[in-house]
Each structure stands twice: as C-alpha cells, then as structure tokens.
C-alpha cells in the first residue's frame, strides 16, 4: 500500500488540517473533527448537519457552505462519527430553528446519530432526521439492514440546504429532504477495490477480468461478480437496476459519480451511455453531475444516481451553492 499520508492513524485529522488551510469559508475544528461553515449558526435558519465515515471525500465536509450543510462530522475512515461529534456540531449550528440530521442508512451511522439526537433533544434542541437509503443493489427487506445511503446524499444535502437557506421551517426542510430521497435511486460498480489505510491492503480481490456489481461505498464487496465488459454494458446493468426499481420518466437529475480512483474521462464515457439510456426510456435528463462526489478511497468504479425531479426540486437544485465540492450561482 502506498498512500499520500503521514500515518494511518492521523489521516483524517491531517486532511482536516488541509481543508482548514484550503477553505477560508470553513471553520474546521480539527480536534473534535467538525467542519462548520464560518457563518454558523445562522439565526433563524434550520441548521443542516451530516456526517459519516471518512474516505468518501468530498462528502460530507466538501459540502459545507452556503446553500448546503452547516456542519459535517467525519468519522474515522469508513467508520461513522461518534455521538459527541454530532452533539457538538448540532449545538454549533443551531440558530433556534432546529437542526436537520442527514444520515446515510448504515447501522453505525443510524445508531450514533440517534444517540446524539436524543441527547440534543434533552438539551432542548429540536432535531429531525432524513435517512438516505437510495441504493437499489440492496434489497430493502426484513432480512437486511435496509438499503444503503449513497449518491442521493448529495442531492438531499443540496436540495434541503437550498430550502433551509430560504428560511423554511424544519418540517418543510424534512419534507423536501425526505422527498428527494424517496425519488432517488443509485447503483454502484467497482473495477478494483480500495485500500483502507489501517488495513494496509485491498479489501477484496478482483481478477483482471472481473468487476463487482452493486458495490457500496465502504469497500464492502458487491452483490455479484461479473466479467469485465464495455462501458455501455456496465452502464446498462446499473441503469436497468435503477429503472426496475423506479421507472424512468419525466425530468431527471443524474449523477455519474467516480469512486475515487477512476479518471474523469471514463466517467464521461459512462455518462454518455447513461444519457442514451435515459433518452431511450423516454425520460428527460435536465440536470447532471459528472465527477467524484461520493468516493470510496481509491476504489476504481462508479455509481449512478437518478432523481426524478419536480419543479420544486429543480428550482432548489439550481439555487446558489458555495461549498468546496459543489459551487454555482455565487
């Protein structure tokens, strides 16, 4: 394993120190591992807090700023944050209008955020949660921990963040966040595994002619292994999974997201295939993102996330945003 790190133990805080240097619009509490927008708390505005394991950059810290999150709590690599972080962040962004926790549906994230929320509630802060669970590779049944939260997190953070910026009340922000999640689906594919620094070697092995379908973002193996194939076929497999779960129709927002080790040129190749697929089903691709947004360390591969837009969601998507990872309109 070769990585640009000082040590496996310090990678998260070292990177936070780098974020602090690079982004004057953020206030980074390196010791407590919390990234705030400098203006937090904004009086009268619902505060948005998200968090989760590190290794998914720019998620979540890169989405802190105007029009998106007020704070992010990065855990250790692939490990959800601890309640203390979430409690501290929640207090730090509470402008009196309540705080929304945007939580990806993993047992660890759910439990740690729940514990934090309980304690914040006891201290009189109104906390609500939007649970993101968009990954169609996982069956949502009694026999699993439920669908994972992946790419739709970016959509929820952006759109709920835009609404919160207008001064909307917590219930409204929850409503729109929940709606974005309900209208979003994702599917991921890995060409090669990532390497957790503390583990020192790749999380699974893939032969030179194999890919993993239905991959998550924590280096966990996927649902099935398949032979390597042209981008067109891989994109079709991913989109078939999405379409089977939520038939494509109307205006859609599509993100083709890199897993961290895949170059942009390949993501554009995939995006061309995805766009053709969407058109073929009669839906209209009106908004898009192509790039690294929800990564999995240095894993090679991509995920595709589709959100069925409404006029309201489109308007909120287009609203100004100013974060390290997503920026337009200001």
């Amino acid at each position, binding site marked *: 394993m070769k990585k640009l790190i000082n040590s496996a133990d310090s990678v998260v805080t070292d990177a936070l120190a780098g974020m602090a240097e690079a982004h004057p619009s953020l206030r980074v509490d390196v010791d407590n591992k919390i990234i705030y927008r400098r203006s937090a708390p904004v009086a009268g505005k619902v505060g948005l807090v998200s968090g989760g394991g590190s290794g998914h950059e720019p998620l979540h810290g890169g989405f802190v700023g105007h029009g998106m999150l007020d704070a992010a709590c990065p855990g250790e690599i692939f*490990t959800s944050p601890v309640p203390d972080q979430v409690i501290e962040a929640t207090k730090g962004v509470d402008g009196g209008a309540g705080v929304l926790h945007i939580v990806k549906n993993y047992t*660890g994230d759910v439990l740690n955020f729940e514990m934090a929320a309980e304690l914040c509630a006891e201290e009189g802060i109104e906390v609500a949660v939007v649970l993101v669970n968009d990954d169609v590779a996982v069956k949502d049944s009694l026999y699993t921990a439920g669908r*994972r939260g992946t790419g739709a997190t970016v959509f929820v953070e952006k759109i709920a963040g835009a609404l919160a910026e207008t001064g909307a009340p917590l219930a409204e922000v929850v409503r729109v966040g929940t709606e974005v999640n309900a209208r979003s689906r994702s599917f991921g594919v890995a060409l090669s595994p990532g390497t957790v620094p503390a583990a020192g070697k790749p999380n699974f092995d893939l032969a030179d002619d194999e890919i993993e379908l239905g991959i998550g973002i924590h280096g966990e193996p996927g649902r099935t292994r398949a032979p390597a194939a042209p981008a067109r076929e891989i994109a079709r497999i991913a989109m078939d999974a999405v379409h089977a779960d939520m038939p494509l129709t109307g205006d859609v927002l599509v993100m083709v997201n890199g897993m961290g080790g895949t170059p942009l040129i390949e993501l554009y190749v995939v995006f061309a295939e995805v766009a053709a697929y969407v058109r073929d089903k009669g839906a209209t691709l009106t908004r898009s993102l192509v790039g690294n947004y929800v990564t999995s360390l240095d894993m090679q591969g991509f995920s595709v996330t589709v959100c069925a837009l409404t006029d309201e969601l489109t308007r909120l998507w287009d609203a100004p945003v100013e974060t390290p990872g997503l920026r337009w309109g200001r």
Partner: protein
Amino acid sequence: MDVQFFTAWIEEIARAVADGRDHLTRLDAAIGDADHGSNLDRGFTAVLAALAATPPETPGAVLTLTGTTLIRKVGGASGPLYGTAFRRMGAALGQGDADVTLAGLAAALDEALAGVRKLGGATEGDKTMVDALGPATRALAEAADKGMDAEEALDAARDAAEEGARATIPLQARKGRASYLGERSVGHEDPGAASTALMFRALRAVAGR
C-alpha cells in the same frame, strides 16, 4: 468478583483486542468494511486511558465508564452496541462496591443482551454479536443456577460464546453491513461475534488468575 477483577477484565480485553486487531479487521474485510479491529482497538485504548485517569471504585463504575468511553470513541455499529452493553451491565451492578456474584454477573449480562437487542434490533441467527452474547449469557445463568464455581461457569460461558461465534459462519447476515451481501455473507465468521467471544475468553482468563 470485585472492582479489581472487573478492571483486570477490561484490561485483558484491551490486550486481546490489540493482539487480535488484524484478525478482527480481516474478518470484517470479508463481509464488511475492514475496520472492526481498529474500531475496538481505538475504543479500548481510550478505555484504558480513562480507567487510568480516574480509577473507578466499584464494579458497576468500571463497566459504565467502559461503555461510555466506547460510545465516545468507537463510532460505527459496534461502538454504540458494545457501549450500551457495558453501560447496561454497569447499571445492573448498581453503585455498590460489594463483590459481584455469578448470579449477579449473569443478570447484568442479561441486561447487556437486552440492550444490544433493543438498540440493534437483531435476534439470534441474524449473524451478529448477539449470536455469541445470547448463548454465553444463557450458559452463565445456567451455570450459576447449578451452583458451579466461577471458573467452571466462565468456562461454560466462554465455550458458548465461541460456539456461537463459530455458528455464525454458515449463516446469512440479516443485520449490519454484512446483510448487504445477501448470500455472499455465508461462509464467513461475523466479526462482532468473534470479538464478543474474545471478551468472554478474557473474562475466563482473568477468573483463572
């Protein structure tokens, strides 16, 4: 079993986790995200520091501090779950500094089990730490009922935990990260069940001193 005993237990767990860190992480790599060993190691390292900083004076306080520290330092699924388990045990043992009996320990473990089941929603057979914790708790209660001595009783608990952990191998996971794998989770030991067995081994080892 006095405050020294419980402190020694936690210290023994910390040692065993440090030694078994890579093994636990490898188990987690197979069906999870390759961090269970480092998660617990980070947690118990912090627990050792906390115990050293303000040595608790009662068995219950040892376990409560352990649980609280795990919740504050581990993260992931295992942090809140093990944290709750130890906190529940601590609460069950109460504030007294009297020696804990086998029956008292069994009752405390039962509380821990209930806490883990409630928080995580898992039942036995879901391929989680509950598959080791459940049988071990029952074995200890039975042994206490039968009037076995501590070493025998903790032998039985450890054996049940180990057997429970081994028995997760053929199971398909229904909770936690491994459940995403569906059928591909079959054939691997659950890392949390393995770490639970490790804790019961540590308990037995300390009792034998």
